């Protein structure tokens, strides 16, 4: 058996080992990469950055723990952006498994902001600056019901407070008070947001998608049904970079933990390795085919 034949029949466990090392080594010894924000991410960021001050950002935490590495950094980056620019935030989840992830995200970001707050105005307060509506079902009833009155859909929030009694809900009655809904999901839930909230009520929809789903969502970006989109961990890293630039612009000095950006050196190394595998595999295939002829 020749070299190329051996190469094509290599035990796949060697490939796994190489990928493990290629991903692991840059995590231990990272090289610096500054993510360049692509137009879909920039559009989403700019829309949130410039939307009217009285409009809230709603984040739909529609992902589950299995895809957390790709999507959780997006949620964190959106919350950083919203609170740094004093936006009101509403969080909800349409996935049972997303409930804890939404809570973890809001807890982490509010703790970060409140640790650096010096006045009441700087603090991020539950029920005043944000509300976590939690989870309920079914999806269609929620998406249509929020167009009429959000407190009817969510009579109590995640923490058990009556939503009618929360100060933030006085200015957050239905879709008219929402600037944009960003659905972060590994499923087709963003399309449900388009079908119901965007098509029927005209609410702008942003999307945070797993990289696997991203190619399917570009038509919605092209048609304007998505205002912007973050695709995979790279999309999260791009948004993190824009938020970091915004922090600099606002004079916020404290350092942000940027999990998406931290992963970019591993991501880059793994992509190069896979490209090399594809090239070697193709060379081997054509060499063997020529020999057979």
């Amino acid at each position, binding site marked *: 058996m020749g070299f190329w034949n051996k190469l094509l029949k290599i035990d796949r*466990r060697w490939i*796994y080992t190489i*990928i*493990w090392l290629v*991903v*692991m080594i840059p*995590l*231990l010894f990272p090289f610096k990469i500054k993510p360049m924000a692509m137009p879909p991410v920039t559009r989403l960021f700019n829309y949130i950055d410039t939307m009217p001050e009285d409009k809230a950002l709603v984040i739909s935490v529609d992902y589950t723990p*299995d*895809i*957390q*590495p*790709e999507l959780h950094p997006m949620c964190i980056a959106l919350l950083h952006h919203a609170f740094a620019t004093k936006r009101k935030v509403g969080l909800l989840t349409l996935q*049972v*498994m997303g*409930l804890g992830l939404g809570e973890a995200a809001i807890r982490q970001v509010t703790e970060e902001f409140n640790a650096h707050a010096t006045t009441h105005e700087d603090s991020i307060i539950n029920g005043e600056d944000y509300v976590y509506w*939690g*989870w*309920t*079902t079914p999806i*269609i009833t929620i998406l*249509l019901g929020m167009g009429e009155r959000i407190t009817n859909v969510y009579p109590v929030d995640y923490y058990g407070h009556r939503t009618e009694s929360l100060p933030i809900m006085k200015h957050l009655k239905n879709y008219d008070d929402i600037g944009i809904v960003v659905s972060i999901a590994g499923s087709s839930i963003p*399309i449900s947001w*388009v*079908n*119901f909230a*965007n*098509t*029927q009520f005209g609410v702008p929809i942003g999307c945070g998608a*797993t*990289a*696997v789903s*991203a*190619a*399917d969502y570009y*038509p919605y970006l*092209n*048609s*304007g*049904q998505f205002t912007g989109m973050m*695709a*995979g*961990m*790279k999309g999260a890293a791009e948004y993190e970079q824009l938020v970091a630039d915004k922090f600099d612009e606002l004079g916020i000095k404290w350092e942000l933990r940027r*999990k998406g950006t*931290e*992963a970019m050196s*591993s*991501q880059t190394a*793994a*992509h190069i390795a*896979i490209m090399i595998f594809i090239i070697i595999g193709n060379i081997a295939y054509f060499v063997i085919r020529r020999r057979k002829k």
Partner: protein
Amino acid sequence: MSADPWTWIAAILTLAIFSFLYKENPFYRFAEHLFVGVANGYAITFYWHRVLVPSLINPVSHGQKLWLIAIAIIGALYFTRFIPKVSWLVRIPIAVVLGYFSGAYIPRAIDAQILQQLRATIVTRSMFANWQSGLWAVIIALGVIATITYFFFSAKRKGILKPVSRIGIIFIMVGFGASFGYTVMARISLLIGRLQFLLGDWLGLIH
């Protein structure tokens, strides 16, 4: 290294799942079954506490919204599937659910996923305000026409249909390539996430 026992449990289960990469083994099967059981238990608990108790049991037990009992009975007919003699009754809740969701979904889906997508392929003069947007608009329109032509099976591929469907294949292949590239990125991201946990949260090697 972490002193949190939950981090250790998560790390050991992660390694048990990864052990499948070497070969099928009891550790992997244990972790897989545990995950399925925990996920189902978590979901059932939430449906009980967040849906059935507040929306059905509480109001009915206080004598309010008694009509919900009829709805609950219709829902409970799903369980007739387990009794062969009356299993046909399962069609009733299925019909209710299908009727409601089809009625709510189909008109909006036609608007959002067909009409608005079609509208987005129309090339207008305003798209040529700058040459890049004009070029992309033309490419998208061409791509849509060529790809639909490729899937047009009612006529033999000859004459104009032949070259257009060939162009359609190119667009389809570009689409597959983009999907594959994104899939690689997604899978690597998931591995990165687990390694960040193992090397950071568990072993404390990265901060």
